[in-house]
């Protein structure tokens, strides 16, 4: 990388879910593992790993800061989930959703975080209603730009407009590298084959993906009806048309699962990061596999990181390993080694 840069590296504990699930790593073990990968920051899903969420004890709080000191880690991002469908008979009201977000903002601040990830499904009004609390607590709310959502889209413009309108300094974006998948992860294709998919049909799915990469994706739009918005996105990008072609060719569940999964990732020119850098405060380096030569066959890390450096980004890029689910039906998972490889890959690029 040409110039020295201020990009910092973190790991989301989402990455270690396989080891946590089986009890091979507890929370302290996860922190130790993160430190071992070379990252200096840690991102958490408090709902997954903080005991007694949403009311962790003062004793746990003390332990948490003790562990951070012990392993030399800085808390980066607190991943919030807005459980707006907590009840069957209704969606939480705006006031309830704001209260839940404020609860998470206060928890994030209490545990030393500076940013809070909010999901791409978060209504504009909920974010706007939570800004005062975020400002008071010194937290920046970051809207995750998770594929198929995109920057420089009608959807992201609505949030930019809210930033302009309120003048807030406590809200911005955090890209997820699922928007920088140039092709399907090879381990996902291998898993589909294990499950009985047809190589020629997978090739059709891959070709369609390549075509979308070439021609550009139709972006998903803002809607409080996620299922409708997502279905429209899939339709407009040809998924249902392709499905209709594959079914007569004998597509089975494995083929169709691969087809469906291929619409969970998108490709955007990484320059979109540079253009929006003033509003980017955190990042998820989502990935499926980094090989022994420190290459990610899906996401062109050098090109993507160059876009951050070009924008003089000084926030964290946080590993988000998701490959476990493409392996754990049949193969061993080593999340720590995968994260170590991605961290090393990023270090080499950033320190070159």
């Amino acid at each position, binding site marked *: 990388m040409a110039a020295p840069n201020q990009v910092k590296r973190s790991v989301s504990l989402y990455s270690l879910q396989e080891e946590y699930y089986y009890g091979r790593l507890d929370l302290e073990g996860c922190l130790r593992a993160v430190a071992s990968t070379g990252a200096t920051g840690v991102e958490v899903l408090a709902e997954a790993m903080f005991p007694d969420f949403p009311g962790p004890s003062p004793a746990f709080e003390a332990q948490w800061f003790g562990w951070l000191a012990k392993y030399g880690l800085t808390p980066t991002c607190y991943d919030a989930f807005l459980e707006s469908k*907590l*009840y069957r008979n209704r969606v939480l009201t705006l006031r309830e959703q704001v209260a839940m977000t404020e609860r998470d903002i206060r928890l994030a601040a209490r545990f030393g975080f500076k940013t809070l990830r909010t999901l791409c499904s978060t209504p504009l009004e909920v974010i706007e209603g939570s800004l005062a609390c975020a400002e008071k607590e010194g937290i920046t709310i970051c809207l995750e730009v998770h594929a198929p959502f995109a920057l420089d889209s009608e959807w992201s413009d609505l949030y930019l407009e809210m930033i302009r309108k309120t003048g807030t300094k406590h809200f911005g974006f955090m890209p997820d590298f699922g928007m920088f998948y140039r092709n399907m992860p090879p381990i996902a294709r291998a898993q589909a084959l294990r499950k009985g998919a047809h190589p020629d049909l997978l090739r059709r799915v891959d070709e369609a993906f390549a075509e979308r990469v070439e021609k550009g994706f139709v972006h998903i739009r803002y809607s409080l009806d996620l299922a409708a918005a997502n279905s429209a996105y899939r339709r407009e990008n040809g998924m249902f048309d392709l499905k209709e072609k594959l079914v007569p060719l004998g597509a089975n569940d494995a083929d169709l699962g691969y087809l469906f999964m291929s619409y969970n990732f998108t490709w955007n020119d990484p320059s979109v990061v540079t253009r929006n850098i003033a509003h980017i405060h955190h990042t998820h380096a989502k990935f499926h596999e980094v090989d022994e030569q420190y290459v990610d066959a899906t996401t062109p890390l050098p090109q993507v990181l160059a876009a951050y450096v070009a924008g003089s980004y000084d926030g964290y890029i946080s590993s988000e390993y998701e490959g476990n689910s493409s392996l754990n039906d049949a193969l061993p998972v080593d999340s720590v080694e995968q994260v170590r490889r991605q961290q090393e890959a990023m270090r080499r690029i950033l320190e070159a």
Partner: protein
Amino acid sequence: MFQQVFDPDGFSLVERDGKPAGFQFGMKLQYYRGAPLSIILDLEVWLDGVKMPREALRAVNRGDVFTLVEMETAVDNRWEFGRWGTVQVLSGAAPAPGPHRLGCTQTIRPSYMPWPIVVHAETDFTLPG
């Protein structure tokens, strides 16, 4: 889906007032951040291919016991990620000693997902004679 869904040591008979009432098993939720019970839309259990009545099911978590209807408002009880919860099947009778086949479908609705998560898992287990 994780490979190990059921607790290999979690199968046992349930008695009420000294009489056979059913059986129970341990299970982990197939969702990476745990869940308040209220967003678990459904649990379905099959024993040896026979679907158990929904009213017979109980979710036991953190010391609380809920029917599936009661679970609809159990917003403060989290089934934590990676922790065994218990499902009781109070069918009113004890399954016979020996080998059995268990199936269980979890339907979970995280609020941000466009569609619910539906995971089906099966296992063989043996009840002591």
